[in-house]
């Protein structure tokens, strides 16, 4: 279990995590980048500037 750096919720991560992978927090939806796997370290993923309508 790792804590989300945005909302503080526990993030349930899958096993074969790789550095550079983007995971999202199930609670707040934040996109987080895996920067280390042992121990797992997460940072906010670079903004994807995703278009969201209008």
């Amino acid at each position, binding site marked *: 279990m790792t804590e989300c750096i945005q*909302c*503080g919720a526990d993030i349930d991560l899958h096993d074969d995590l790789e550095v550079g992978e983007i995971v*999202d927090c199930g609670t707040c*939806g*934040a996109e987080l980048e895996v920067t280390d796997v042992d121990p797992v370290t997460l940072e906010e993923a670079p903004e994807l500037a*995703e278009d*969201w*309508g209008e």
Partner: protein
Amino acid sequence: MTSASVVGGSGFTGGEMLRLVAGHPEFEVAQATSREYANKTVGSVHPNLRGLDLRFVAPDDLESVDVLFVCTPHGVTMEHIEEYRDLAETVVDLSADFRLPDADLYDTWYDGHVAPEHLADAEYALPELNRENLAGADLIASGGCNATSTILGLKPLVDTGILTPDDQVVVDVKVGSSEGGAGGGAASSHPERSGVVRPYAPTSHRHEAEIEAYLGLQVSFTVHAVDMVRGSAATCHVYPESMPETKDLWGAYRETYDEEPFVRLVAGGSGVYRYPEPKAVAGSNHAEVGFERDERNDRVVAFSAIDNMMKGSAGQALHAANVALGFEETAGLEFTGLHPVGSP
């Protein structure tokens, strides 16, 4: 089984109440009243209840029952409260008649009260606010739909002191047409009501009183009718004394709602549904709450969305009854809503 009857069963909240009670594992429907449709089948008014083998009775034919859900317009319950309490151990009223703590407030916001001696017995239904007092309550006052969405959106900020009574709060609400009840008038005819963004209560909406009573906050309230049938969405523009960090906000909301079965936090993330919206909860008893920080304006925007027919009335009433009677809190309220869904 616990028997339950519905007064005002031909109305919108009454129909919803019947549906919920009929699907509840602990309840069985006894009677439903309607003056206009007495002796007609419930299914002739509520097509989704065609499977229910029940006909409306006149209010005078109401019999004793364990729980009475009263779904009539404002003013009816207060007039009949003695009779209702004689008929049933537990009375759950969906109107505004027993929501406010104080007869004076009825003078200010309504046209007074004719049975103020019962006010002290009434418990406000919202379990997120008043769970501890609901157990065993015998007169329950289900909250106003717009008050409910507003209270749920702001409560974490108040509980954690981020927001205090001195702070400025604007609440801009958008609601669906079922809020008007089955009666309707010219303004709620389909040609006039379709596609609107209509300021229907620009100021002085009565739910301000409820919010102030239960949240301890005076809010500037404005309600707009928009093109949906179900839903109340409150956008709360809040100016805290000192701006909280994002994680403080998450902390506040999680602390308040982490254990709540019917409140979901939705604040950002990816995909189409990033903030609370009524269509994500339509048909369900869930509330979505969330927020966004506005650094530039030292503002927190809190969003809250419910289905006014469910969390905003019949669902809340049943939830409170579950608490009052010691049933599983979520009993009869498991439906999670639909996706995709149009304008439910």
